[in-house]
């Protein structure tokens, strides 16, 4: 059967929730096995001591990105449905501001939302406190929504991919991203050598 199955109507809502539990379970398991249950393993990248965050994230991104392209070549995945129906909308300025705030929160707080859950089940009190901080932060966001609600929905560029924006074939864009990732992987070795743990 050609995917994506759920949004093409092959699966019921109830089934989708069982899928959620299953893929979530695999997601949490792999995050722990990658070492992401400890904030030091997540923040050491910002001091060039341990570049595992970049290595894990970009190899995962490239795997899934090429996987979808390859499945569509094989006729097993309708890429047009992805682009036209389920792609995340781009809200340019809110996502830039959100990214700046999130990056600050990441290095100050030591986790991101998914990894803080894995940190919590690893016994890390700082992960629990980070989660509580997120809940409180979202209260503040909701409380002030009348002030920034318009900004939140602004600069809506709709469903837009990098390859559409640059006028490329998706395969070319994917290959360019993969080359960037390989260069970054090569540089991580230099970074880790330059900044050992005791420096």
């Amino acid at each position, binding site marked *: 059967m050609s995917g994506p199955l759920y949004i093409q109507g092959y699966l019921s809502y109830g089934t989708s929730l069982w899928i959620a539990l299953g*893929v979530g379970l695999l997601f949490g398991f792999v995050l722990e096995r990658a070492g992401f249950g400890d904030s*030091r393993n997540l923040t050491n990248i910002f001091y060039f001591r341990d570049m595992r965050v970049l290595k894990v994230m970009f190899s995962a991104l490239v795997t899934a990105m090429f996987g979808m392209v390859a499945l569509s070549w094989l006729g097993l*995945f309708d890429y047009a449905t992805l682009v036209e129906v389920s792609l995340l909308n781009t809200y340019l300025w809110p996502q830039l501001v959100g*990214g700046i705030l999130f990056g600050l929160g990441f*290095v100050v707080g030591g986790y991101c939302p998914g990894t803080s859950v894995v940190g919590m089940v690893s016994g890390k009190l700082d992960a629990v*406190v980070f989660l509580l901080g997120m809940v409180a932060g*979202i209260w503040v966001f909701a409380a002030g929504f009348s002030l920034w609600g318009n900004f939140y929905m602004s600069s809506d560029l709709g469903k837009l991919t990098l390859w559409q924006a640059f006028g490329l074939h998706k395969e070319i864009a994917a290959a360019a991203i993969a080359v960037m990732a390989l260069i970054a992987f090569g540089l991580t070795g230099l970074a880790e050598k330059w900044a050992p743990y005791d420096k």
Partner: protein
Amino acid sequence: MEKPDYAQGFWNPYLAGIALGVVLLLTFYLMGTGLGASGAVARTSAVIAHEIAPSTVESNGYYKEFYKPSAKHPFVNWMVVEVAGVFLGGLIAVITARRFRPGVSRGPTASVGLRLGLAFVGGAIGGVGTRFAMGCTSGQALSGGATMAVGSWVFMMAVFGTAFMAAYFVRREWS
């Protein structure tokens, strides 16, 4: 210097990344959307606030989308169930690796009080960030990044650019 204990005993990061990528690909094949996390935290914050002040939450400009008339409970939601799976999967991984270590992860010279204070502040700032960005490292950077969505890449670059620059100012927390 050798890698410290907390950085040892894990999968090779490239293999872990490929494993994560296969899970993500499976999710896209089945659902058409990727993995996420922060949406579940947003719903949790809505549910807690709703326990305290139901009418305020139901009329709040942001939270009201979770409390539409005749809608199911905010926890009956794909991403909330997925994050419950993350909790269980993480727990299974921790137990099978015998890696449950209660404590506070921090740099060698940082106090527990400093670390926990900054964990809360960072969580709050990051939480606000997830709402403006409509996602986090999972939903936007990783999943949206794999679909080559423009906003997801803008978000990812902003996250890492900011974190590398801000790291200098919190080096006492981590170094």
